[in-house]
């Protein structure tokens, strides 16, 4: 397991919101857990995220939301990923997302939604358990 390439995670903050404390905490935790983390930063569009996803060949996309745009944004992102045949990537979301809203995100293809109270260890575990071992190259 440890001989394999590390899991590669792309993190981004979509939209205009600038609350990046949480996403940086997650980035640090994933890095400390041995994953390769690329944090794209703020004000990312779905197009920018998809481009980076393909260029970097990541296993996981993690998106942080705090301004209630999650539904519209995820739907746009998922369509773009589908267009590019970029399937099999684990998409997770976090931030200020109510449980009722989280339930709407899952049928759209989001594997899990983490709240601001989620322990980072839980996110680490979830990624480890759900990333498909595709990186043989």
């Amino acid at each position, binding site marked *: 397991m440890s001989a394999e390439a590390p899991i590669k995670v792309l993190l981004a903050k979509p939209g205009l919101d600038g609350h990046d*404390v949480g996403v940086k905490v997650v980035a640090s*935790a994933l890095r400390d857990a041995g994953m390769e983390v690329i*944090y794209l*930063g703020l004000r990312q569009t779905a197009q920018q995220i998809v481009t980076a996803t393909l260029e970097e060949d990541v296993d996981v996309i993690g998106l942080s939301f705090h301004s*209630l745009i999650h539904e519209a944004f995820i739907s746009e992102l998922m369509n773009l990923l589908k267009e590019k045949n970029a399937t099999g990537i684990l998409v997770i979301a976090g931030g*200020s997302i109510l449980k009722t809203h989280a339930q709407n995100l899952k049928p759209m293809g989001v594997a899990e939604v983490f709240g601001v109270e989620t*322990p980072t260890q839980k996110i680490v575990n979830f990624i480890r358990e759900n990333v498909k071992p595709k990186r043989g190259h």
Partner: protein
Amino acid sequence: MAVDLNKDKLEEIERAAREWEETTLKRTLEKRPERKEVFLSNAWQPIRRLYTPLDVKDLDYTRDLGFPGEYPYTRGVVPTMYRGRLWTMRAQTGFGGAEETRERIKALMKAGEIGFSLDFDLPTQLGLDPDDPRARNEVGRTGLNVSCLKDFEPLFEGIPLDQVTTSMTINFPAPILYAMYLAVAEKQGVAWEKLSGTLQFDLLKEYGSLNAYVFPPRAALRWWADLVAFSVKNTPRWNPCSLWMVLGGRICLPPDQLVGYAFAKDMTYIDAALEAGLDIDEFAPRLSFLAPASIDFFESIARLRASRRLWARIMKEKYGAKNPDSCRFRIYYPGSADDLSFKEPLNNIVRATIQVLASVLGGARAIDCGAYDEAYAIPSEESSRVKLRTQQIIGYESRVADVVDPLGGSYYVEALTSQIEEGAKSCIKEIEDLGGFVACIENGFLQRKAAEAAYRVQREKETGERVVVGENAFVTEEEERPLELHEPDPELERRQMERIRKVREERDNDRAQALIGRIRDVAATRGSVMPLILEAVKADVTMGEIMQALKDVWGEYTLVPAF
């Protein structure tokens, strides 16, 4: 105060303290050890068991504390403090469109609110019009959407601007909203001199903190000085900017860093204003400060007191301020969601009460209160009422407001106050040595500091070392209680887009374009753009157009994330 004690008396206390430690205390500790081996504040500062006159023996009452309303203002900026009048009780308001917000403002005025704060949505905070592609899905989501005078005017219909004080939480586009406010006053026939209110307008704190930055930092400083110069000349009762004590969007930093780094930032503004030719006593009296109170009660109180004293000293000693008002550090506590929890939201009412009480005992002049549902969304109507009620109960029922600086003279509070002041001075020096505040934004120093502290807090919560009741301790398995949340109006985005389209269609477009061109021209010189912006908003030039004209000249900034 300890300083009033002579050497013999201090020695006597020292002996007695030693004796107590070796006898009474020791016996108890042998039987029952303390809860923890080391007690640390939420920001990792060691907390001693007991504070005595020995901890404040260097304190000089008249030099370091003095009397309220007098230099160095440790005990308060007003002689009578809350006996004269209670703090201004603000409540953050603003969502969706102007009409909805106005109704809530009127309701709050009826409930006894005398000042109100307006919160804006993200497109407005970044100066993007609602039909800008980057604004998609964001219009009205986190606050009020304003992009032209026709959006702003209806907000104050039936609300005479000389009878309210308005605080606007807006940063980069603040000069444009301020110009709109002046334009509304003109239409109402209210003289500019009578306007009172506050713009947040702390641009440097956006980089790496709340991150609603637009121009590069050095252009931001020029934009800042331009508005401040215009405001002190034309609206003498207006506070053109309240400066934040915040870093990295969080307040979990040690208090000396929080104060020291914030003051390094604030002194950067002062230097910019002096460079622009203003006199220190001309603008310093109009500065106000947003300082958070955290749930760490005594540390918050001491931090506010230390800030007041250090600021007064910097103004007098470093900048040679002669006007006492230049030295008055007027504090607004805007309510903080940092200590609030997602779990069992009603517990947040208790947390917010502690924060408000700390800012009252720390001598804040204006207060808002965290809302129990703030961790999720814009406060609902119910939680907005509770915010106000919390303050009213503290102000009218608890009697804590009836004595000036009631904790002054507490060995603990005074020792902590002095310690924070000294530490803050070192932090100011640290930033200077690293090339100044702007350099520390650009090289990621401040971002990293904040990110490290936030990560440390998170790890401590996960190990249980840092207790958050109901979240990681004393947890009960309970169904999530449905909150009454403010639901964004799905039609609003379309309505705002429609409105701005109509505004652009109906205005004298040649004139609008000419004004945009002139703004660009003046921005390229060292001249003031404020008079032109006022003209432009009156001619229905939109906020997005004005900001774009400035971006064309000053550029747009991208901060490289550091953690």
